[in-house]
């Protein structure tokens, strides 16, 4: 019984959300086949992004709100690859390759900025994300087509500056997903995509068995002690962010090839919030994240996302309520995790105090 108690308390959050999801599923009354199809699709396109958040958490950088920078790198690569009319899986692979140096650059810059804001990494990452988004919009909404000559009718509207709001990714759509699919009822399971996700999970698992991974773990626990032991903490932190940013770039590419259209100015906006909320719902925290938590969280979050409007309609008579509810959940779980993280830090100190005074 004690064993069960321990498992429940350690996984309280995902269990709670599982219950909420079950309620949502019940009220939503969506046909099972449909639900399955949507969930498989969402897991396929979002899991990679959620997994990319793990490394910074372990390295002590907290939740990487700056993941948006990686998404932007991926998007820029996609814009270019559309312009150059790359197609198929080959084109997709090239796009990922194109995104990589950009993502590395963004990651290095981000890591350096974060090193200057130690103790405030998360809010700095968040603000960096907004800032980068602003610069991105400035370039693609204003400079492209005016100061930066760019004349592709598929991407531009001739009468106004900047790129079109939506870019059709027809040549790359499904390039990864459709290589090998297995049909199950209404659901088309993209096997290769899931293999890629599994590969990433494996790579992360293997990474933490290497020396570099061990160094990340050490730095994540205590910068000072690691530094005294001779580990280069600043460099390792930057590296952790670079990894995360590159993975986010690839993740965004996978995401967009599934959707098939690029919303030039919006696709990336909620990337950070949703991916982080998903990770936290899976039971992760600011200081601890595992592969299992990432995948569980992705599943639960997207399940909730899908059933909320219908459940809202059933319970409150308004689908809108459901939509707002799911956004509220996303923000809320992040707020709670952040608060717990801060509070736990304080109360640990307090607890050790009290037991010593009585000694």
């Amino acid at each position, binding site marked *: 019984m004690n064993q069960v108690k321990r498992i429940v308390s350690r996984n309280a959050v995902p269990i709670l959300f599982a219950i909420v999801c079950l309620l949502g599923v019940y009220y939503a009354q969506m046909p099972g086949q449909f639900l399955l199809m949507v969930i498989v699709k969402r897991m396929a396109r979002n899991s990679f992004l959620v997994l990319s958040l793990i490394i910074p958490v372990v390295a002590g950088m907290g939740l990487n709100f700056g993941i948006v920078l990686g998404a932007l790198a991926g998007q820029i690569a996609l814009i270019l690859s559309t312009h150059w009319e790359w197609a198929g899986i080959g084109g997709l692979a090239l796009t990922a390759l194109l995104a990589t140096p950009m993502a590395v650059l963004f990651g290095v810059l981000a890591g350096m*900025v974060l090193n*200057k*804001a*130690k*103790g*405030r990494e*998360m*809010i*700095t990452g*968040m*603000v*960096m994300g*907004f*800032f980068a*988004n*602003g*610069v991105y*919009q*400035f370039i693609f*909404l*204003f*400079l492209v087509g*005016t*100061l930066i000559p760019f004349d592709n009718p598929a991407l531009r509207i001739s009468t*106004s*500056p*900047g790129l079109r709001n939506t870019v059709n990714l027809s040549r790359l759509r499904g390039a990864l997903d459709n290589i090998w699919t297995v049909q199950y009822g209404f659901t088309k399971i993209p096997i290769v995509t899931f293999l890629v996700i599994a590969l990433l999970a494996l790579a992360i698992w293997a990474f933490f068995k290497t020396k570099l991974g061990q160094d990340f773990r050490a730095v994540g626990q205590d*910068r000072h002690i690691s530094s005294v032991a001779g580990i280069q903490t600043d460099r390792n932190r930057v590296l952790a962010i670079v990894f995360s940013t590159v993975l986010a770039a690839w993740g965004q590419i996978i995401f967009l090839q599934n959707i098939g259209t690029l919303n030039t100015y919006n696709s990336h906006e909620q990337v950070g919030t949703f991916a982080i909320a998903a990770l936290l719902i899976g039971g992760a925290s600011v200081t601890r994240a595992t592969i299992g938590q990432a995948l569980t969280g992705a599943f639960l979050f997207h399940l909730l996302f899908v059933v909320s409007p219908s459940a809202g309609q059933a319970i*409150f008579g*308004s689908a*809108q*309520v459901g939509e*707002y*509810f799911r*956004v*509220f959940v*996303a*923000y*809320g779980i*992040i*707020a709670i995790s*952040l*608060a717990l*993280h*801060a*509070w736990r*830090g*304080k109360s640990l100190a307090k607890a050790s105090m009290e037991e010593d005074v009585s000694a």
Partner: protein
Amino acid sequence: MKGRLIKAYHGFGLPRLIISIFLLALIIVAAGTELRVAGLLSDALVRIGQNGIYVLAMVPSIQAGAGLNFGLPLGVIAGMVGVLVAMENSLLGFAGFAVALLVAIPLGVIAGYLYSLLLNRVAGQEMMVGTYVGFSVVAGMCIFWLMAPFRNPALIWPVGGQGLRVTLTLADTFGGTLNNFLSFKMFGFAVPTGLLLFYALLAFLLWLFLRSKPGVAMEVVGRNPRFAVASGLNINAYRSVGITLSTVLAAIGYVVYAQSFGFAQLYNGPLMTAFPAVAAVLIGGASTREAKVRHAIIGVVLFQTLLTVAMPVTNQLIEGNISEIARVIVSNGMILYALTRVTGGEQA
């Protein structure tokens, strides 16, 4: 002489320098073009008064040691409820404005106090927690606006008969009341006297508070909590004072903003309200640990004037509405700069 120049430069700060020079350049360009500088100036004055109180709200939060108040939306929402109550009852002119304040302020006090209880438990991470608490409350309020017991047909969706619309106009209630109060025209540009007087009044009251015994205590708590404890001050109590004051100012700020802007934007409207206010106070010379009323004033003047002047000027060069993007880039750039400075006494 050179030493003094360097010292002045450091005191002024690189970002403020950049922004001031940029602003100056824009004004010169504007004057050189066909634009009516007078018109720009009156726009700037309105925007300063309209946004100024939000920036004032940052000062007590910073001084009490809770950092930049990213949870500003909480106060804004209290203000929104006040405005909605006035609109629901179709109150006109100053009656509407006054009732809105009368509802907003107590709500702001309650919200601020509860918020301060939370922040007191998360010392060191106030900015991050505040941001997401603010976001959550905005999202939660979206549900509230949808289901709220408002009946005035001017406010709710025509179909279905329930739930507030997204954008509501104040034109037929108390929009412009304060702005137009005692307003006058001078050399071709209009001065929104009522607005500016009200802003000045609040700035003065805040300044007065910071010179009083509790205000001084609050500042000590923010600057050196351990010193404060040794002097017998209750840290959490004074932090609560600062945070509550900040939230109340935000609530008042919203009522003023809504009547000036003429529209109430519900649902996701208040989501990012904190960011420009945070940036403005930083531009004015504040840091994450120290802010004076004059920082708030200088900051909002610089920032809002920049935004007002920037748009039409850049429109001449680049087509499109650059104002929003400029605001995002300048705000977040400024905040990023402030976050990456290691102020004295902060640990690595």
